[in-house]
């Protein structure tokens, strides 16, 4: 995983992106969002920003065991790549 495919900019080197956090379930309360994020070996849902490009915020779904990126789209929907 040294590339991410930005929905706007296309495949770009990982160094253009900044990892922000793993994302909790949408219905999680404030405490759970911060303190009860569960690390899964199969699926990690993460927020990344394309700081070296369009500055878009991306939701990246990936498998931390294999490093495979399963899906990338803009947070808040749209622009699926």
């Amino acid at each position, binding site marked *: *995983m*040294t*590339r991410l495919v930005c929905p706007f900019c296309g495949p770009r080197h990982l160094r253009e992106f*900044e990892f*922000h956090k793993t994302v909790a379930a949408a219905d999680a309360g*404030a*405490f759970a*969002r*911060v*303190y009860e994020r569960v690390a899964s070996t199969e699926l990690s849902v993460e*927020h990344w*920003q394309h*700081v070296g490009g369009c*500055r*878009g*915020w991306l939701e990246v779904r990936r498998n931390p*065991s*294999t*490093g*495979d990126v399963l899906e990338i789209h*803009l*947070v*808040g*929907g749209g622009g699926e790549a």
Partner: protein
Amino acid sequence: MSAIVIRRGTRLREQPVRFTFDGREYLGQVGDSAASALLAAGVRAIGRSIKYRRLRGVVTAGAEEPNALFTVGTAPAVIPNVVASQLAIADGLVLRSQNRWPSLKYDAASVLQAGSGFFGAGFYYKTFIWPSWRTYEKLIRSLAGLGEAPGSCALGPVAVEHLSCDVLIAGAGAAGLAAARAAARAGARVVLCEREPVCGGELEFEAGTIDGRPAADWVTATVAQLPTLGVRLLPGTTLVGGSGGEMIAHTEPGGLPGTNAIFKIRTRAFVIAMGAVERPIAFIDNDRPGVMLLGAAERYLARYGVRVGAELVLFANHDRAYATAGRLAAGGMRISAIVDTRTAAEVGAEPLRAQLGRAGTECLLGHAVLAAEGGATVHGARIASLAAPDRARLIRCDAILVSGGWSPAVHAGLQEGGARRFVAELGGFIAAGQPDWRTSAGAANGRLELGAALADGHAAGVRAASHAGAAGSVGAAPLASGDAVPRLVPFWRSPASLAGEKRQFIDLQNDVTVADVRQSLAEGFVDIEHLKRYTALGFGSDQGRLGGLIGAAVLAEFRGEPLADVGTSRLRPPFHPVTMRSLAGLRVGAALRPARRTPLHDWHAAHGAVLEPMGLWLRPRYYRANGADSFTAGIAEAKRVRTTGGVADGSTLGKIEVAGPDAAAFLDAMYLTKASTIRVGRSKYMVNLREDGMVLDDGIVLRLAAERFIATTGSGHGLHMLSHFEHYRDTQWSGSAVTITDVTEAWAAIVAAGPKSRETLRAVLGADWHDALGRLTHMEFATGRYAGSELTVLRASFSGELAFELHCRPASAVTLWEALVAAGLEPYGLEALDILRVEKGYLVGSEINGQTTPEDLGMDALVRLGNLCVGRELLDRPAFHEASRPRLVGLRAVDGRGRFLAGAQLTIPAAPNRPVGYATSTVYSPTLGEWIGLALVAREHSADGTVLTARDPLRDGDSVVRVVPTVHFDPASERMKS
């Protein structure tokens, strides 16, 4: 120095080269490695071992060499731990042996022999415990470490090349060449790296035929053909690591760091054809100079015409030993005996054995070498039948050549994790469960026989090309015949008594013996990863390629479990040592990171400012005209601001413009207090919280228009706050009408502070601004023009004085600044700024440190306003209201004179060793004439007047301080509002 005897080998030219080793001059030939030239000169002992200081010789002909590591060069370009077998000699090259003091021959520490018990397994863990550490520190420091780190190192520049290809192949032996040819024919763009300076791998010496012609001819023809197929060939280049399809390869011409290049290779598919590493067998004193790998002897003969001994004993567990023996004999070496651990039923190689027997070689089946006899070099091999190991006899020889089989080079495939599979007929592991873009081929995949390796390489090339979308016609795989299948029967160590196990070496570089494995297990370190940490097995430049598997096998033996279940320790990059200088590549010195400079940077530099980095920014710390050091200059500058006034460059403050119909509502959610209540033309001091309730940043928010704001941030925080705002705008506030723009560099900021700031500004800005400057109340701003350019004047203060922030366009910043200086406002730097703000109890990153809530910082009133912002909900956590939470307080010395410094730990008399807080910021206040500070102290001990001890054992010692209000000076802020 004796007259040179010209040797002939595949890599040699008949041209002499002079170099020195430990001060003595030697002659070699162009093409020689340092190891081959020294072996040819009859040098056996080339260094001492790291722990026991035993004399060691060359063991391998490859990068996995554990012993022959030299310090190369003369000061200042000295490089330790250069692998002699990979280092090409050159005229004037200066080599020194390592791990010996004062000389190789007489080493003061060689009394620490194996078996003496001084340096047992886990030695460091047992000895590095206070107070015994003090006893041993000096001795250990003089001995520890592989080689010696150079104090400074003037290595030359490193070229960095980025390559992109469809198929990257590591290794240009039989399998790698077949893979490259197939992939290129299929239409793929191929890059082929080879660690050695020449291609061919084993085919450099292995007799065989490929497609009906001698194997060596096939190699020559294929290497010539590859460039015509568009293959980029990188000889002398080692793949050292990588991940996810971006691999890093490193080339050192002649194996010498300092004149090298780094390749960053992006590839769609990756074929690992890095061959297999021959492994030794452990027996007593198997580390003596003269004990060498069988394949190494064959390589030294073929490549460099070096005979590693005159009378040899071979010790092996496979058929290939007999083919090699035939080639060594043909090269003029006498083979006294071949000691084979296998039984008659397990052995093949019938005609070869008979032929060797006729030539006078004893072929002993079911036997083992129990010990190497000799001193500084081998004199004989003590051998015995495995059925009767106590009835040993001595065979005289001057070299013992060992081969315990081959371990596939799986490193490159497993550095990112991934599985491996035990293969019984190899007695070793191959990579398994690889992602579809990565594949092993040839010996690296366990295919040791030439025909199988070529077929495997060809198939891997086709598969890799097709993964990259190239599926052209490739033709048939090469057909070949070479050395027979090895018919290997795993054998790891010869029989030995418990005492003998202390001299059965399994990891030569780290001096790990069979006895260490036994001890590790006895002390509860049962897992292979435990064993590695406890004994250092598998650390070092060879990363366990030579001894790692033997260690695992011995552990398996002691645990009574199959090797397949014990496994080997996790593999990590780099595959081969790389200097930090190479990895840094072009990113050194000024190119390390970008620099951000304010529009006034050149003025500061020209006027004696001492600049200090802050994030990517450089900011004036003080001006030399005001004092010789930051302490005196800072005091002078701060004093002047309080008496008359001064100007400071505030351009590094982050400025983010937030605009749109939803801007006010959005900012309400971003800050602890509401932005929507700010009137146009006014501003407010506001703080941001993180999601977990901690204070993230603070700054002033200006409302330029109903739907337009500028939020200022801390100097190092601009980019982070921009991302923070954008994140919430795009997640929770997605769909809202807000634009967020970084305008940090669109506005320069000049702070004019002090009692005379208003009248000076009136003089400089002219009549247009006269009334506005009088009218502006605290936190109010006005916009207008100065010298034809836009100007915003905000009345705000970070010093406690009457002060104005002037936001102007960068192009007019110098003009405005120079006018202010000419009108009498002298510049002041960060040091003075710090004094002024601590006197007033204002906060910086020392207090807003990511671990403090608004209540910790005394902002209870702001929290009580009840604005529902990001992070607000979690402020109600009970843990944030416990008596042990910190509280921001002021500090002063009880005697009014003592000095105490930021970082000092604060204790109460009842618990002198358990701090209840620490000083976050301290300054000497010229206004108050004493040291003052801010501190975070547990709430239960934060009451005004509480006496604490500021403990600072490494600097000032202890001083007695008392808790005071955070605002040390002008608590009613009368000066600021004047």
